[in-house]
């Protein structure tokens, strides 16, 4: 059962060197309040696991611009000059991961798998240093689970049992990241009574959710 906390309290749980799996894509579905609180708390040397590095002033890009991040596993940097600069200067260490592979590696950690075999990246730099395994005559790259200490996600609504639903393309990586944190913190727009969400429409069961932050109290 989750505990209701503020964004500042969420940030206070996070320590330098923690690994954060953060939901969202190009800042849609990003847990902006928690991100702002991390920036405000001045936490440094974090590792982030994200699809994209967003913009300098939106989404996880704010963590980069404020130098909270020392390393990242990410698939797309194109919208954020700052992360490219920090990468080129050596301030931030980047592992580029194909987007589908990133999702499977995060899901693997959340669901207790050690990794998956994927054809994505065969014959490219992505396969370098990795084990190639042949199954039924086809080669695959062994891609290992990506562990995270915290999953920070943005959902649309939670109920009082911590069940989450997402809105439109703000789903993106959030339901996957939500499974994957040793501690999962969900930022939501509102908390509704238990029973108000249709059991068939719940995307993330409350079992995955440890803390909830409401980002706008009406």
């Amino acid at each position, binding site marked *: *059962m989750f505990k209701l906390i503020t964004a500042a309290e969420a940030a206070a749980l996070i320590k330098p060197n923690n690994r954060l799996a953060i939901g969202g894509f190009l800042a849609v579905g990003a847990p902006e309040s928690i991100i702002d609180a991390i920036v405000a708390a001045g936490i440094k040397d974090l590792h982030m696991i994200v699809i994209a590095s967003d913009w300098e002033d939106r989404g996880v890009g704010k963590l980069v611009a404020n130098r909270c991040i020392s390393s990242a596993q990410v698939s797309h940097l194109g919208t954020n000059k700052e992360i490219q600069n920090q990468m080129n200067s050596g301030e931030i260490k980047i592992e580029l991961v194909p987007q589908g592979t990133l999702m499977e590696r995060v*899901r693997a*950690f*959340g*669901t*207790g*798998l050690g990794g998956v075999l994927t054809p994505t990246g065969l014959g490219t730099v992505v396969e370098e240093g990795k084990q190639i395994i042949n199954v039924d005559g086809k080669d695959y790259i062994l891609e290992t689970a990506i562990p995270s200490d915290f999953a920070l996600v943005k959902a649309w609504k939670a*109920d*009082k*049992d911590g*069940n989450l639903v997402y809105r439109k393309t703000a789903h993106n990586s959030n339901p996957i990241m939500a*499974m994957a944190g040793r501690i999962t913190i969900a930022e939501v727009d509102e908390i509704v009574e*238990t*029973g108000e969400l249709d*059991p*068939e429409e*719940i995307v993330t*069961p*409350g*079992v*995955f959710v440890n803390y909830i932050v409401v980002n706008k109290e009406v």
Partner: protein
Amino acid sequence: MAIDKRAQIGARIAKELKHGDYVNLGIGLPTEAANHIPEGVRVIFQSENGVMGVGPAPEEGAEDHEMINAGGGFITTLPGASFFDSATSFGIIRGGHIDVTVLGALQVDQEGNLANWMIPGKLTPGMGGAMDLVTGAKKVIVAMEHCDKRGNPKILKQCNLPLTAKGKVSLIITEMAVLEVTPNGLLLKEVTEGFTVEDVVKATEAELIIPEGLA
């Protein structure tokens, strides 16, 4: 098993379940625990076919044929319940998100090994979800009769039936006793009223660590 024995074991399992725990109860005896959760304690029950928030069995005539648990029994759901596919359900299990699972056993041994899915040449129900549950749950409790129908011990030095998982059991609850699997072996924690330590030792093949002062 007699109803009072079942109730007694069920009540003892229930004591292991804390407020807010997510719990998976195996078919049969373990489900008895659901009837003994104290008032004020909220435990959320999963069934591995794909539902969280299982409630009591429906009244006769109110069964929904698409509402069953992993044993095939009709269920109801409580407010806050959710339905999902079996991959997600086992993702919850294998990912370590279930606090406690309680299962029956054919055999369990002093190293925490469990055998509960096959008697070669005799019985092959298959492992179903048991291997994932025992591998993934944070705490694995075995609940069973202390001996088999012929009176032979089921708590052994070493299981000789095909294993369900290796070294994952942490607690054994029977009608006679409660035993904890420790790095040093099986610790006899409780003896049920009406039995003596000697009764338990006699009914158990495994060696037991018996703390001083245990009645």
